[in-house]
């Protein structure tokens, strides 16, 4: 059951007043302006045992994504497509507020929103990942571990997943006499586009990109906008308990398209080095 709760961290009233006062002057407490991201670092191929991996650092937020490729039965209704399965876990390492256990609703929302961006953009051409349509298909697992949490897990996780998928290598399987054989060769994944998510939060009348954990504790509402390479929208998720006006949403979409393009060119650059 979904329940309203205290924010994960409690920001002191004084700090919150400082933040709101700074925002009214167009500044954030860490000195950024509203539309700038923290430093983004993407490192790929750090887990040898995975078919693809990426570590993303967004300020102090740190996320690791790993791709594992197997074969299996297709999903019902998607018999001729490869299967894509995503999960995310906020590790107990991530902050003093996390307790180990099954994913809570925020972790479930996190993995589902990231999944939606990849799936709806058709980043991976899943039609090309059926070995015997209806029977045996590639099953691609993308699992994410949040190692340190300082806000905007949605974007950090999304970039880690996209970077890991973009640079992963798929084993080439063949089917002989109904048995799947790994040929030992590898191939690049069938990539069609690069989805990039941009998350904004509203605090009072200010809309800020890439919130820190402290800013998230003060936010009224959140929106995540995922665009693909041509700048079209592929996924949206409004979150948290406050509303947005239509103008705030339309403006956020414009900002997300521009910012998304900037981040996309960073992610595209990875492929050459992969």
């Amino acid at each position, binding site marked *: *059951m*979904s*329940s*309203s*709760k*205290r924010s994960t961290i409690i920001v002191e009233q004084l700090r919150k007043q400082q933040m709101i006062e700074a925002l009214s002057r167009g500044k954030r407490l860490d000195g950024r302006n509203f539309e700038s991201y923290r430093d983004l670092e993407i490192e790929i191929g750090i887990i040898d045992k995975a078919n693809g991996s990426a570590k993303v650092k967004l300020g102090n937020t740190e996320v690791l994504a790993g791709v594992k490729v197997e074969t299996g039965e297709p999903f*019902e*209704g998607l018999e001729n497509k490869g299967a894509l399965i995503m999960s995310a876990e906020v590790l107990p390492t991530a902050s003093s507020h996390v307790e180990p256990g099954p994913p809570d*609703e*925020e972790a*479930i*929302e996190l*993995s*589902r929103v990231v999944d*939606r961006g990849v799936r*709806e*953009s058709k980043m991976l051409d899943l039609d090309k990942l059926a070995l015997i349509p209806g029977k045996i298909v590639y099953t691609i697992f993308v699992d994410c571990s949040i190692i340190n949490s300082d806000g905007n897990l949605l974007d950090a996780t999304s970039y880690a997943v996209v970077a890991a998928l973009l640079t992963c290598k798929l084993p080439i399987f063949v089917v002989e006499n109904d048995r799947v054989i790994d040929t030992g060769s590898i191939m690049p994944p069938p990539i069609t586009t690069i989805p990039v998510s941009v998350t904004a939060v509203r605090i009072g009348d200010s809309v800020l990109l890439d919130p820190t954990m402290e800013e998230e504790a003060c936010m009224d509402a959140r*929106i995540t906008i995922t665009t*693909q390479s041509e*700048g*079209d*929208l*592929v*996924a*949206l*998720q*409004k*979150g*948290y*308990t*406050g*509303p*947005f*006006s*239509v103008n705030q*949403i*339309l403006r956020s*979409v*414009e900002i997300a*398209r521009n910012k998304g393009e900037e981040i996309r060119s960073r992610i595209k650059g990875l492929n050459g080095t992969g």
Partner: protein
Amino acid sequence: MLIDENGKRSDDRGIDDLRQIKITVGVVKNADGSAFIEFGKNKIIVAVYGPREVHPKHMALPDRCVLRCRYHMSPFSTDTRKNPAPSRREVEISKVIRESLEPSLILSDYPRAVIDVFVEVLQADGGSRCAGINAASVALADAGINMRDLVSACAAGRLGDNIVLDINDQEDKEGDADMPVAYLSNADQITLLQLDGRLSPTQFSECLNKAIHGCKLVYEIQKEALMKKYFGDEVELKEEV
């Protein structure tokens, strides 16, 4: 084809038509507030309990009421039987429904208490989260919870080049985009926005406008349903005069 040469959709609607909507208020006798909505083939019952004491007690908030929400699909509500255990999809939808309702409620009026909203989908036909929100908001009003406005929800989406109102199950599966929206009509604010599928920026704003238009139509039906329960006879009397 999802739209035929006459501009008709698979269920014979035009691109700007809502499905048939019927809301009945006060259908669960034990609940503090309740509503039953038929939204196309969707059949959803919502019961509201509260404000009441919070259990476990440590969940209580000192300055406002806790809102809890469960969206659940009955095993017989879908084409293939749905496992009754809550799925990840249901967990996410419970969360977005709660977040879409919260802005409408004045929760600071009930500190240390809880309001429970149970959304049970008896039959699903695409757009069940929107239908659930519509019924839930009416049930909250029926429970007498202090609120700023009713929350109305409706999806719009894309079938090929057409932006259409109120996506049904088949259009959700075979169409190109589905965008559920929840809206506060008086405040002109959006409390739920999700998108699955591809939209260009111009298609997006057309889709958003269309969905908001749908929400406004739903709003009238919600108000009528409440009027009918609480002023039913008086409304009829006025008409006779």
